[in-house]
């Protein structure tokens, strides 16, 4: 005999503003099997939860329905409250009266009717709930960090310093990411590499960190605490144990004119190369697409000059497997090439460059050794124009969102220009200035007031070349849209920050959600910024959304502590909402007829066979069996089974049938 308690929450005014909560509680109280039905202002608060616990104790409730917000919000809260009062937590269900009802409908009878229907549905469902015990699984205390930029580095160090092992996988030949490409960082104008490289070295030397560079994630199986990762270590054509990093091979390589990706194509590199001098590990890789040996079968100069005979031309990719407990995604972002704005002439005029290319020019170890020089003729520009929002905040051609860091780095670029080119004139065309961080506003004011950068509020409509100069035509909206024309020597476009190419493929491998721009999706935009909807996978840095270095580092540390929290337990409790094949006493043993067609429906290969034998070992029947360690609870097999021999807790045949019946009767 069911004794259900219904608790309708006002959620302050969030629900009660449009739903008549009192009426819902009153109607629910009249249902068969409901022995307690109240409404209250804040069910999730302490006094609210006490009401539930008291009712369980006093009335011996066998089931609880909390009609409030989304179960994705507070199901754990209320289940815990029930458990504390002695009721099995899985006898508690939630009716979503807020996100699915009060917040999306107008106040009125129809809305209250809907709320009543939703409560009734869950009351009928909970009558069919079973008491369940959580499943305990062991946790592998090794973390996988994908991406070796500043976020990945920070996360790896933080996790490693808690005493757990970390596998750091980076797809380029060196860790460091975009931060290693920067010259100086705002708002302090710290030299980027100077603050980054000690961290990079720490990662390489940390006893708890295994670093795989020039490697990518091949596949991932399993679930939280029990992942199995296969990592492809791309062949560097090098025996890393023998290589001393002397660099002789690089100096002798005859193929010298490959545009350097690290220098954003402003300089060249060789076919055997390290991305930058401070690379970690400081061991070269051979770019097989440009190396003469791989193209024509000739050369091999590097092999000849290598003092330790470390070159291995026939080395193949290697796949390594690791058991992993948690994953931090820190794959960063890319810069959107502004060639979709033909008006700006990017790609047409060599002196129209992106912000990241400017970083390389300004960098002391860059292709111009820190001097701001025009890519076309190497002259120092006397007039330079910076265009903010070159691609961002543009629903028509670019991306609609704000890339967050460009206002700051444009101010920085202009300041660096003024510091390096005395007497030079710099102009910034902007729409707004977004300088929200600590010391950020002061930094921008410094650029304007102390370094004399000219800020013009307006957009640029066209850039064209005339007599060796770049004519920049824009407008000054603060002077009534007065047209402005500047004869510039160089133009820097603050290009948009976008998700990396192929990030949706990585997301699909990991079953992590991503948004329309292919940035990885956080579990909750306010309260769970470093978690994803996939248990055990966390986010750090710009792969979630464009952000600057302090934010990336903070997020990385946040993700690291989530991982550490996971690893602080020896066993993880998994929700027992998994499938199981029907079992019965002899002589039936099971409704399952052993057709085995369900086996291929399972994405986790969780269904196998069970042989039912007599005491003498004779086979009576072979039926399907679900491995409780692997089943993730999708229920595909359950809907597929013709004879309903397989059922899933939490969404049993009985429960879903009751829900449909309850919903539509008296609807």
């Amino acid at each position, binding site marked *: 005999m069911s004794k259900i308690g219904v608790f309708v929450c006002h959620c302050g005014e969030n629900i009660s503003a449009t739903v008549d909560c009192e009426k819902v509680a009153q109607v629910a109280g009249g249902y068969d099997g409901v022995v307690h039905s109240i409404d209250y202002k804040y069910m999730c608060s302490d006094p609210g939860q006490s009401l539930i616990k008291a009712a369980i104790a006093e009335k011996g409730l066998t089931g609880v329905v909390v009609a409030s917000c989304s179960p994705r919000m507070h199901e754990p809260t209320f289940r815990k409250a029930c458990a504390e009062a002695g009721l099995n937590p899985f006898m508690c269900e939630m009716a979503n009266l807020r996100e699915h009802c009060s917040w999306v409908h107008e106040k009125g009878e129809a809305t209250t009717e809907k709320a009543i229907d939703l409560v009734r549905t869950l009351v009928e469902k909970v009558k069919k709930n079973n008491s369940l015990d959580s499943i305990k699984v062991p946790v592998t205390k090794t973390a996988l960090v994908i991406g070796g930029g500043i976020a990945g580095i920070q996360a790896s160090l933080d996790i490693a310093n808690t005493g757990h092992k970390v596998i750091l996988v980076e797809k380029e030949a060196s860790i460091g990411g975009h931060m290693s490409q920067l010259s100086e960082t705002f708002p302090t104008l710290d030299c980027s590499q100077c603050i980054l490289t000690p961290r990079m070295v720490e990662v390489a030397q940390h006893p708890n960190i295994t670093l795989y560079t020039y490697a990518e994630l091949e596949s991932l199986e399993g679930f939280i605490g029990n992942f199995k990762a296969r990592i492809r270590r791309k062949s560097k054509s090098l025996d890393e144990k023998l290589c001393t990093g002397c660099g002789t091979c690089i100096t002798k390589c005859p193929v010298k004119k490959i545009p350097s990706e690290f220098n954003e194509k402003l300089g060249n590199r060789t076919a055997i190369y390290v991305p930058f001098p401070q690379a970690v590990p400081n061991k070269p890789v051979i770019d097989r697409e440009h190396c003469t040996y791989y193209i024509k079968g000739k050369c091999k100069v590097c092999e000849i000059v290598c003092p330790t005979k470390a070159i291995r031309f026939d080395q193949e990719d290697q796949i390594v497997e690791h058991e992993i407990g948690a994953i931090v995604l820190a794959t960063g972002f890319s810069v959107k090439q502004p060639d979709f704005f033909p008006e700006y002439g990017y790609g047409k005029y060599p002196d129209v460059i992106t912000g990241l290319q400017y970083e390389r020019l300004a960098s002391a170890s860059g292709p111009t050794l820190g001097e701001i020089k025009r890519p076309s003729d190497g002259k120092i520009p006397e007039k330079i124009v910076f265009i903010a929002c070159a691609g961002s905040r543009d629903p028509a051609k670019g991306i609609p969102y704000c890339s967050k860091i460009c206002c700051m780095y444009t101010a920085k670029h202009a300041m660096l220009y003024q510091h390096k080119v005395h007497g030079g004139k710099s102009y910034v065309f902007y729409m707004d200035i977004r300088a929200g961080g600590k010391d950020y506003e002061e930094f921008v004011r410094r650029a304007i007031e102390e370094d004399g950068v000219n800020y013009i509020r307006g957009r640029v409509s066209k850039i064209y070349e005339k007599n060796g100069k770049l004519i920049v035509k824009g407008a000054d909206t603060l002077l009534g849209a007065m047209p402005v024309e500047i004869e510039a020597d160089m133009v820097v476009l603050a290009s948009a920050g976008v998700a990396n190419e192929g990030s949706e493929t990585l997301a699909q491998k990991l079953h992590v959600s991503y948004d329309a721009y292919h940035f990885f999706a956080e579990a909750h935009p306010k309260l769970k910024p470093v978690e994803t909807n996939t248990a055990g996978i966390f986010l750090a840095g710009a792969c979630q959304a464009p952000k600057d270095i302090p934010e990336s580092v903070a997020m990385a540390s946040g993700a690291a502590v989530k991982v550490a929290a996971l690893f602080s337990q020896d066993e993880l409790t998994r929700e027992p909402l998994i499938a199981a094949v029907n079992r019965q006493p002899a002589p039936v043993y099971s409704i399952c007829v*052993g*057709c085995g067609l369900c086996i*291929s*429906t399972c994405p986790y290969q969780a269904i196998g066979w069970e042989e039912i034998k007599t005491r003498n070992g004779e086979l009576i029947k072979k039926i399907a069996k679900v491995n409780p360690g692997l089943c993730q609870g999708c229920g595909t097999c359950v809907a*597929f089974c*013709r*004879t309903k021999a397989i059922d899933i807790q939490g969404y049993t045949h009985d429960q879903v049938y009751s829900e449909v*019946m309850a919903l539509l009767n008296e609807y």
Partner: protein
Amino acid sequence: MDELKNKVRELLGSGTVKVFIGYTTGTAGTKRALFAEKPEDAEGLVFDSSCIQNLAVYVTKQEVKEKGMMGISATLPVMRSLVQLARENQVSDSGIKVIGITPESRLIDFGNLSEVEKYIHQFQLEIDQKNRDMLEKLDKMTVSERWQFWLKELEPCFKCYACRAACPMCYCHRCTVEYNQPQWIPVPSHASGNLQWHIMRAVHLVGRCIDCDACANACPLAIPFNLLNKRMIEDARKHFGGYQPVLSGDHLMSTFKPDDKENFIR
């Protein structure tokens, strides 16, 4: 057929087979199944074009299986059913010996089910023209007209479940229709009860039905519900390239292609 009778006598006499399933003449000249256990029983075997029941339905019955090794005279539909049943682990080489009867009434002594599979794959699983025309006629009706058509056709159905009894693929110990907690399929033979039963059966046969018509032939009211199964076979060809019974490998409905095409999902 003398050849068949000799073969069966030999199989039973040597003890290779303990029960042989074939056709015999029953009441008023109708054909029914024969379960020959002694060599003499083979005398009752017949075969002609009116032998249309699907004998494979018996190979999953406990009463037949417990006699020991089975033998069966199998026309093409029976062969297809046997292969599908083998795929679904209901029958295997260690339990059955198949004597095939080709469309030209030639006998094939199959060594094992693999040979049966190879034989049946020579023939496409296709709907005949008459039924295709009927389905096209239905397609040309409006939705309402089709609804009225089926309500009228299914109206006489009184839930005898002969269709289920005759179908070799309906071997579940406990059919969904036998659940009453909750009552998935309404028991009474009213419009909605009949509708749900026939839809459910058609759904459960998607990818498994081999178009033997045993169900429609068994129906005492000659209701053409096998049109539903035939449409599903056509659809399987249209959307997924069709299917054939196979001893192992992908089943139409428990696998998928990432690029399955549809145009009705927003």
